[in-house]
C-alpha cells in the first residue's frame, strides 16, 4: 500500500500510470493509461485476449503481463489497477467499478459527444443514458435469457462458417433480410439452419439476426428515453452490421438517435476502469497528503 503511494508520488512529475482490466465472459480487455500532471490522458496500451475455453485467471494474469510489456511499464509503476466485469478474478486489482459506470466513462472518453451508451457483450446488453461527465442517469439490462446476445451471434457465425470479423460487412450487404422468429437463442439456431437449407444467403440471414438483436436493444434504449448520439461499446461495437441494423431500425421506429462507434470501443470498459482508477488514485493520494 505504502509503496504504491510512494511510487505514484515519485512518478507524478511525468504522470500516473493506471490500468483497467475488464474481465468479460468471452474476452479480457486491458488498458494501460498515463495521466500527465497536466491532466492529459495518454493511452499506452490496449489489449484484448479472447478466453476461448482457457483458465480465466491465467488469461487475466498473462494478459496483464503482456499489456505491461507492451506499454514498457513495470508492474510497480502502475499506481492503480481497476477491475470491472468479473473483478474477483483480478487478484492484483486495487479497486472495482461496476460495468456500466466504466463503460459510460470509457464511451465519453472516446466519443465525448454521446449521451447514451449501448454496451453489447457476449451475454448481456446494457443501455445507459449518461450526461457529458459520464454520469449514468438511467439504464436497462437484458435479463436472464441469452437470446440476442453476442454469444448467440458467435454461435451462428460459427455455424455459418464465418469469421466474426466478416460478420459486419456481410450483413451490410444484405438485400433481403430474413427475420428470425424464435425467441430462444438455441432455437433460433435451428431457425437459421432451416434458412440455410432453404437457400437463403448468408448476408440475409446475418442481417435478419442483426435486426432482431437491434429490436431488443432499441427496446432498452427506448425504455430509458434516449435521444441524440448513442455509442456502441463492448465486443459488438466492432460489428458494423449491428450498428447499421440498429441505425436503420431506430430510423424506422422514429427514434432520433445517431449511432456511433469507435475502433477502440471494445475497450470502453477497460478504459473507463483505468480512468476511474486515476480519479480515485488522485483522491486517495490527496487524503494521504492531508493526513501526513
Amino acid at each position, binding site marked *: 500500500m505504502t509503496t504504491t503511494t510512494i511510487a505514484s508520488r515519485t512518478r507524478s512529475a511525468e504522470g500516473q500510470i493506471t490500468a483497467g482490466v475488464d474481465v468479460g465472459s468471452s474476452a479480457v480487455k486491458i488498458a494501460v493509461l498515463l495521466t500527465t500532471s497536466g491532466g492529459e490522458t495518454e493511452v499506452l496500451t490496449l489489449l484484448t485476449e479472447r478466453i476461448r475455453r482457457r483458465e480465466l485467471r491465467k488469461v487475466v494474469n498473462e494478459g496483464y503481463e503482456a499489456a505491461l510489456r507492451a506499454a514498457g511499464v513495470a508492474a510497480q509503476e502502475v499506481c492503480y489497477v481497476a477491475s470491472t466485469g468479473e473483478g474477483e478474478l483480478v487478484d492484483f486489482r486495487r479497486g472495482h467499478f461496476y460495468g456500466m459506470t466504466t463503460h459510460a466513462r470509457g464511451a465519453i472518453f472516446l466519443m465525448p459527444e454521446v449521451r447514451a451508451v449501448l454496451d453489447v457483450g457476449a451475454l448481456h446488453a446494457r443501455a445507459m443514458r449518461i450526461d457529458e461527465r459520464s454520469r449514468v442517469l438511467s439504464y436497462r439490462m437484458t435479463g436472464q435469457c441469452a437470446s440476442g446476445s453476442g454469444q448467440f451471434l458467435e454461435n451462428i457465425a460459427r455455424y455459418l462458417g464465418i469469421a466474426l470479423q466478416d460478420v459486419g460487412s456481410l450483413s451490410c450487404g444484405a438485400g433481403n433480410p430474413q427475420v428470425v*422468429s*424464435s*425467441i430462444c437463442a438455441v432455437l433460433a439456431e435451428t431457425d437459421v439452419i432451416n434458412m440455410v437449407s432453404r437457400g437463403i444467403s448468408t448476408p440475409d440471414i446475418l442481417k435478419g439476426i442483426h435486426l432482431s438483436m437491434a429490436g431488443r436493444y432499441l*427496446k432498452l434504449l*427506448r*425504455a430509458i428515453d434516449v435521444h441524440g448520439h448513442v455509442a456502441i461499446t463492448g465486443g459488438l461495437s466492432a460489428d458494423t452490421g449491428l450498428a447499421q441494423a440498429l441505425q436503420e431500425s431506430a430510423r424506422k421506429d422514429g427514434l432520433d438517435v445517431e449511432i456511433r462507434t469507435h475502433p477502440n470501443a471494445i475497450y470502453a470498459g477497460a478504459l473507463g476502469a483505468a480512468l476511474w482508477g486515476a480519479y480515485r488514485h488522485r483522491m486517495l493520494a490527496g487524503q494521504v497528503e492531508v493526513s501526513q
Partner: protein
Amino acid sequence: MTAASASPRVPTEAGKERSMSLQKQMIAGHYTALSHAPQEGRKVVYTFVPGNLTELVRSFNLLPMLPEINALQSGMRKLSGDYIAEAEKHGHSEDVCTYVKCDIGMLKKGNIGPTGEKLPPPDLLLLSYTGCFTFMKWFELLRQEYDCPVAMLHVPYQSEGCILPHHVDYIVQQLRTEVIPKLEQVSGLRYDEDRLREMLRLSAQAEDDLVWVLESAKHVPSPIDAYFGGVYYIGPMFTAFRGTAEGVAYYRTLHEEVEERLRSGLGPLTPEGSQEKERYRLVMEGPPNWTSFREFWKMFYDEGAVVVASSYTKVGGLYDGGFRHDPARPLETLAEYCMGCYTNLGLPTRVELLERYIREYRADGFMINSIKSCNSFSVGQLLMLRQLEQRTGVPGGFIESDLVDPRYFSAANIKNRIESYLQMLEQKRAGANP
C-alpha cells in the same frame, strides 16, 4: 372476435352470409357511433367483457366500449406487435398480460380503432373486477391517462362452486351505491328500472338462440365449430348488443342458418368453405391466439378436427347451465350473471364443466391452449389436464401461445404438437379397432 374485418371470407352458399353481414353491419355501426360520440354528445363507458353490464350501461343511453375487444382486433389486424412494443417502451414489463399492453400501446399511438376511426376517450371507466385480477391494474393504468371517474365493481370469486346470497347482496349494493350513481352522473339520466327490465328480456331471448346454436354441436357431425367459429357467434352477445333488438335479430338469424346447415348435413363453416370431414371432435379450453388466428384454425380443419365445445365461449357468460337474464330481478340477475362467467368459476367447477362437455358432446379429445398472458385462465390448467384425462379417459393435448403477442406464437412448434396429438388420437383409434 366480432370484427367485421375479421369475418371469414365466405363462399356464397345460400343463407351463409346473412348472419355474417348482419354482424358486420352491427359492429361497423357501433364503432361509427363510438367515434362520433364526442361530436354527438354521447357518453362512452369503457368496460370489460366478463361481467359486463351492457344492459345497465345502455339503459342510461351510454355506449359501451371494450378494450379487450380492441386488443384482440389489433391482434387480428397484426398491429398488436407494434402496440405491445410501444407499451414496453413505456416501461411495461415483458411478463404481463399483452391485452393490457396492446391497449395501452394503441392509446399511445393515437387510439385508432379497428375500423380506422379514432376512438373516443372514456367518460367513465366501469371496472367490473370479474374473474381477473389484471383488470384492476388495467383500469388503474387507464385512469392515469384519462381524467375521468372510475366505478369499481368487485365481483367475488365463486370459490365454493356456487353463488352465495351475501355475494349477490354485495354486488347489488355496489351497483346501487357505486355503479348506478356514477352512471347517472355521467349520463345525466335517472336510473330507469323498467327500461332495464325490457332490455334484460331481450337479452334472455337472444341467449336462448345462442345456447341452441352452441348446443347444435352435440350433433355428429357437428354443423358448427364451437371455438374458431364460436368466437364469431358470441361476439354480439358478449360485447355491446345484449338487450338490443339487433342482438335478438342476429341470434334468430344465426339459429335459422345453423338449423339449415343441420338439415342439409353441412359441416362447420371455415375460411375455406364448409368443412367436409369430421375426423376428430375436440373440446377446447383457453382463449385462441389472435395474431395467427387463421393459421391456427387451419391447423385444425386441415386435419379434420372440429371443436364441438369450448370454455372460451363462456367467458362473457355461461348460459348453457341454464342461466338467463331475468327481468323480474334486474340487479340480482346482473349480479348472478357477473359471478357466473367462466373465469370466475373455481377450478373444480371448471373441470366439471369441461368433463360434462367431453361427455355430452362426444369428444374424441380435448386440447388446452395455454395463454402466456392470462393467469386467470392458465394457472392450474396442467392439473385440469390431468384431472380430465383421469375422469374421462379421453387424452388431452397441451399447446402454448399468447393472445396478441406475435412473439409467442411459434407456428412450427404448435403445429408439431397438434399434429402429434391428432396422430396419437388416430393411432389410438386404429389400435382400438384394427
